């Protein structure tokens, strides 16, 4: 089976919609087991391990993060946050057989109670075709103002 550029682009749109609609079980199932979600702290950061990042999460941490959102004693989610992605048509930067790289600019809005914040960001997806399905091998999200002081970011861009 081969993957078309449009299928890759649709995949990115679908993922954003899952996150906006809070369909986290489906979203976790998109990931390959050894994938990492990386959100650098520094502009153009190259090293996720030996420097501080905002996020560098394996599947255990991502599951924990998602599970926590619905916990009976998760007080920072009473009431719950909501999020909203507005994405630009993804660039498909690489198509190498079964692996692909896309680059997507987006505006991410997260809100809870009277507060709402807007983040401009770029997401790089490393995708892989495994058993006939597209999966996320890694995801890197660069926030345009990564060096600013942030309030809580509780959901996932």
């Amino acid at each position, binding site marked *: 089976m081969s993957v078309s550029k449009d299928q890759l682009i649709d995949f990115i749109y679908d993922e954003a919609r899952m996150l906006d609609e809070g369909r986290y079980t489906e979203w976790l199932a998109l990931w390959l087991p050894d994938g990492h979600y990386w959100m650098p702290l*520094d502009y153009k950061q190259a090293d996720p391990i*030996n420097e501080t990042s*905002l996020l560098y999460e394996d599947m255990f941490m991502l599951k924990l993060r998602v599970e926590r959102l619905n916990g009976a004693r998760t007080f920072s989610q009473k009431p719950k946050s909501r999020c909203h992605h507005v994405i630009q048509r993804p660039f498909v930067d690489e198509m190498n057989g079964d692996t692909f790289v896309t680059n997507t600019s987006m505006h991410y809005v997260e809100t809870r109670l009277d507060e709402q914040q807007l983040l401009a960001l770029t997401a790089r997806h490393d995708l892989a075709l495994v058993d006939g399905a597209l999966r996320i091998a890694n995801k890197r999200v660069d926030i345009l103002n990564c060096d600013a002081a942030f309030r809580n970011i509780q959901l996932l861009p």
Partner: protein
Amino acid sequence: MGIYTGDPAAAANLVQPNQVHRDVYINPDVYKLEMKHVFANAWVFVGHESQTPNKGDYFATQVGDQPVIQVRHKPDDIHVLYNRCPHKGTKIVIDRQGNTGKFFRCPYHAWSFKTDGCLLAIPLKKGYEGTGLEDTPSGKGMKAVGAVHNYRGFIFARLAEEGISFEEFFGDSLSSLDNMVDRSPEGRLEVVGPPLRYLHHCNWKMLVENQTDTCHPMVAHESSAGTAVKLYEELGLPEDAPKPPAMEIIAPFMSPYEFFEGMGIRTWPNGHGHTGVNHSIHSNYSAIPGYFEAMAETYGEEKAKAILDENRHNTVYFPNIMIKGPIQQLRNFIPLAADRTIVESYIYRLVGAPDELTARTAMYNRMINAPTSIVGHDDLEMYERAQEGLHVDGMEWVNIQRLLEEDEDFSEEAVLNGTTERQMRNQFDAWRKFMLYDQTAQQEAAE
């Protein structure tokens, strides 16, 4: 004009042995007074020397609400200057760090200053001839803070010209900083990357008090640490299988009350203190190959073991930083307003130690201290609920009397049950002392 305006004694009266009045957290006049008296008379953290390694390197930050520049004037000489042009007030540097070369040059009218602040040149200087500019503060150059001390790479400043010495202010509490630096086989730390910056809508003191609040982790962090434990159990991994890193870092937050009682709290004079006298949530981190060997080579096995056996958890340096020796971190609680605080969380590399140690502190930082951290979310929610709740009239005092003893004397070091709130009382004792410092000094001068 408010009831506290210009009256530090009125503010000092908000502190009682077992409780403090809510105005210490929510009143803007009390906030102004603490900036003017507490932050001016105490020794406050500025930065680490490795943030300005070369001549002309500078780093812009705040001491209390005062914008300052840490700058390397000579290879072994770091100065702390107010970030303000003596001409018309323009901030001299706007970026957070950089190199200014041999001198600072104000971007407005090009007055220039040596990196120790001294006036270097003024364009069209003849316009000031005979005007007596040299006799004014503006004619002297950029103003320096009252005093600066570099302690093993950590730069502290006292804004006041006169006052308590560095040694007297910190006393034996420096043992925590020593332990953090000694963990480097070369006795040297280096900052790693920029700090996390996390904006809280609460008073800076709530964050500082939380550092030794050992009765909240198993409650407020049940959502994150408790869920981590549950997920791990569901995985059903064999005992000896490697644990997910999150388990090593986050799960210890769920330790029971007895663990925190037994870990102990030590307080020192002038508001400093630490949790983890006997053990701490950092005690059971896995050993990193090659590290002990490197330490033993420098210090000998016995001393190396003694350094690494120290597992101090959080050490609070009054007024507004906390360090974690075992993982080389420093959190700076920078006040912006009575209800606004930026928390900057730094990590350091142990020079001469394996990279895995840096990786662990980086992991701890993002898992616990980031604006994206689930543990951070738990805490912020509590602080901000408190900041709002304190506006309730008719119930105006905040209780700090867990394990209160009669006639507590904070001028003596003490080691107690790890769930005592004595360190919070110790901080308020110091807060009161430095709030009244100028007044006391005046009285003593008059006598």
